[in-house]
């Protein structure tokens, strides 16, 4: 299999039960961080990128980029599709286009994914400081 440095993918966002449990426990909790600072990638796509589960990846779109921990997408195959749970981390890369009806485009966004094993997934406070210079 050819290993690529980057893959073009479709980004989906949404709920997971872990994110739901984490947010109810508190968004400053470790459970919440563990449940949302992740990116679910098809196992075959991980192989194409020459990277493994639980290593970090960079996800980029026209709206920004973010470092996340890659996890294998369950119940696949979902080739060419990545999934990131709702949270501050994915907000860095979702579309602001509201199509004049107020609703930003939070699913089905064109994105690129690349390995970033040497980069760190920022915690909530660090990410907020990086994004907004506050806190």
């Amino acid at each position, binding site marked *: 299999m050819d290993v690529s440095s980057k893959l073009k993918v479709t980004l989906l966002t949404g709920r997971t039960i872990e994110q739901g449990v984490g947010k109810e426990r508190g968004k*400053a*909790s470790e459970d919440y961080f563990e449940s949302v600072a992740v990116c679910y990638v098809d196992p075959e796509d991980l192989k194409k990128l020459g990277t493994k589960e639980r290593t970090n990846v960079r996800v980029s779109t026209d709206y920004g980029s973010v470092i996340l921990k890659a996890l294998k997408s369950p119940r696949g195959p979902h080739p060419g599709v990545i999934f990131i749970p709702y949270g501050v981390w994915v907000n860095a890369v979702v579309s602001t286009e509201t199509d004049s009806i107020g609703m930003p485009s*939070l699913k089905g966004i064109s994105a690129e994914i690349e390995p970033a094993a040497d980069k760190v997934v920022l915690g909530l406070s660090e990410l907020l400081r990086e994004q907004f210079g506050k806190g």
Partner: protein
Amino acid sequence: MPIAKAVVCPVCGSLCDDIELRIKNRRIVKVKNGCSMCESKFLGYSGHRLLKPLIRKNGTLVEVPFKEALVKAAEVLAEANYPVLYGWSSTSCEATRVGIELAEEVGGVIDNTSTVCHGPSVLGIQDVGIASCTLGQIRHRADLVIYWGSNPWSAHPRHIERYTTLSEGKFERSEWRSYVTKTKAATARKKVESALRQVSPKKKLSIPLAAVERGPCPAILKSGRKLIVIDVRKTRTAEIADYFIQVEPNKDYELLQAFRALIRDQEIETEKVAGVPVEYLEEVAEAMIGCNFGVIFFGLGLTMSKGKLRNVDAALHLTRDLNARTKFVIMPMRGHFNVSGADTVFLWQTGYPYAVDFSSGYPRYNPGETSIIDVLLRKESDAALVIASDPVSNFPRKAAEHLVNNPLIAIDPHLNATSQMADIVFPSAFVGIETSGTAYRMDHVPLPLKKVVEPPRGVLPDEEILRRLLHEVRKVKKRKKAGAEVK
């Protein structure tokens, strides 16, 4: 040890009202009947808690007396030209009612989380109308349940068990047994596949899935309640479905229109629609027409992807068309426990369900213009009050940036991204745990939220904080007016 019975769960729009809580030393120690999110909230709500009002001084949030935070917040809102008041979906209807009065007083935009959730559904329903009913009707009568772009197993964990396929209705039986059989078969299948992989690791061996084997669709042949899931990913809900259709991302509209054609007995002259073979669609269309009482529950898979309100339009039209052949209803899967209540109170008070602009002195509604994301992206607002919501965690970064760059007031029980970025923070009591109130279930049935334990000392309910803030804003405005007259 006191036990609180028939407690309504303040987590998701299902508002399960059979929760039992065991209380010891004024703390909840055990939860019965709840899902994992419900347990997480009732047992973990007291962690990561805000307990004192905070004001940002020299870049750091410091504890201040309540009065100081109140006066400062009132000055911010009274002096702003175009403030936004946002959130409302995780508080009581009573608090929202006061919030609308406050929005009118300060002449700002008031919006609730529908705007980034089922806002397009509201717009679609306003365009087309909706054939719907209560969840009780569905529990007792529905023999075909479709979840479209929705994963209740993760977002509304007891929805299937309480209201649809796995619930025991008067006229329709629970499919629990068949679900257990299916789960056992799936586990066995995984074990066999794993054993095959060990025997021959390089060869790709797999057992074909029943749903993709040709021949008549099991969902049609099966007696009893049928569960169909249509989604872009195979979710936990999809795994237990009788039939799963994996639609390509951003192609729900094509699929919905294909179903509209098929149930009118029109032929589709292509092999696939949205990546799905037409023969599969024909089987599902057959099941739709052949049922006695069908329901489509749709989620954010329709409202957040390409097409948005047009996807919802198509789903509502499909339901309307199906009613020419059989009985069919449709319902949005509302997320936050009182987002339906926020829409309802907004409607009572202003005539509009969300994105209401009071800057002209009367309520104006034009999503795309008066909706909070658009207001923030155009950088028009000059202050914000956020209550019972965490937009810094949920808005696209550019929109959140403008919120954070202007004076920001947060009212929330928890320390979250928005309260960390706020300039004035009010801790509040948890509605449905530490204070009572009214919430609307996703089918618009109002239910009473109970107070089961006391809030921490000095922590007030949202409604009370808003009342005091409204009173203080009026005082500031009066002072300003008197000052202007003297000059």
